[in-house]
């Protein structure tokens, strides 16, 4: 839908790529910090979501277009803010299901941006904001254990 797209600046594309890189990194850290707690299935699910977020980050590195928005700068600012909040929530959450919900919502947001569908971006963003709100409303956040392996 070329008529429903608008160009991104290199800086905007970088911000998007960085946001999804950061979420992927947060999911990776969560997998490591909770390595003793997560079941193989949960590790597998989180790995898939981490890979999807990296996939979108890679896609935005070579992207030059975004779905048409009434105010692109405001939409991008909202995405940046929501993904930063998602990172913070994943870093402090203790409930694996909630972590999975946030990670899944982040991946859906990435898919909605990549789809170039103007209306999908809004609902993707809304889904992530709701998932974050749900995790904090339950009061089920706490600091997790330290990583059990460190980078060389």
């Amino acid at each position, binding site marked *: 839908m070329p008529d429903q797209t608008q160009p991104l600046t290199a800086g905007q594309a*970088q911000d998007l790529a960085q946001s999804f890189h950061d979420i992927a990194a947060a999911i990776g850290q969560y997998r490591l910090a909770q390595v003793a707690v997560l079941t193989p299935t949960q590790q597998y699910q989180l790995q898939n979501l981490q890979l999807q977020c990296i996939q979108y980050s*890679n*896609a935005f590195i070579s*992207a030059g277009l975004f779905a048409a928005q009434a105010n692109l700068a405001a939409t991008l600012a909202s995405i940046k803010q929501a993904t930063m909040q998602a990172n913070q929530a994943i870093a402090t959450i203790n409930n694996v299901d909630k972590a999975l919900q946030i990670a899944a919502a982040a991946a859906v947001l990435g898919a909605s941006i990549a789809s170039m569908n103007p209306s999908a971006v809004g609902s993707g963003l809304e889904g992530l904001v709701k998932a974050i709100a749900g995790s904090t409303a339950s009061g089920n956040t706490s600091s997790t254990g330290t990583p059990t*392996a460190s*980078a060389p």
Partner: protein
Amino acid sequence: MQRCRFFVRVPLGRQLGANTILLLTLLLAGCVELDQVTALAKVADGAKTSLPVIAADFKGSCDRQNLYVHLPPGPPPVLPPPKACVSGDDLEKLGSNLVVEQNVLLDYFDALGKLASSTSAGFQKSVGGLSGSFKDAGLSAAQQTMATSAGSLASAISDLALQGYRKKKIAVIIGKTDKDVTILANGLADQVAPAAAKAPSTTSYISLLDNESGLIDSYYSIPLAQDPNSLAAIIVNRQWQEDVNQLNARKDAAQAYRKLMLSLATAHATMTRDAKGGHFDIKQLGKDLGPDVAQMETAIADLQKDVR
């Protein structure tokens, strides 16, 4: 250089008239000018073998990222894990465009060097096309500006060949093309390794390597955390270290690429500055260009060491 040697070998005891001395001085001065430009072109030419390796690695990083995926234990799941990178085609086109653009830039320096040389034979102009399919997919504004400058430089190279510019015209040519050289060299530097590592202002090869880095860490750290004390863990740790070392070498090569491109832009700006009234300020050029050429040589040595 041949003509320089001829005049230098004039016997010192010979009586020279004022006009002859003036002519000798001008020709010697001309040789200094030509040597500097030719030397710069030769150094730039030395980078040609290393630069395409980095551009090709845009897709290379994408392919490597797909290797850092764990399959779950037990029977194969209904759906395999997603790939970490499915943008290989776009990244390959991006890399190909960078190769075309950097070759235009290096061909331009090559053309200057050949025109400046006393044995100036004709030069070949081979300007490949930018990927149209990638352009349709949407070049960023910075990439479009770079493509335009590459086109202008390619056109300048054609003009140099067709209009048979002579050495005395080099100063004029340099002045006209300096803006495009600056845009292209800085753009290439930013596409590979942007200035601020902590808050880069543009997407780049470094962004891809950062994604690769995150995948490497998860790929090794999580299984090691599950089984930290086995003998296998020692071997896996070594392999992890080796992968990190290779990744860091690629990051170093990207930074060397940036330094090289910025040095090319600075050297060209130096030549522009030292060209006054369509002629070089020869003494100043000789003094000013030395550090730029030395920095380029260092950057190329770093590139060749780290690129793989």
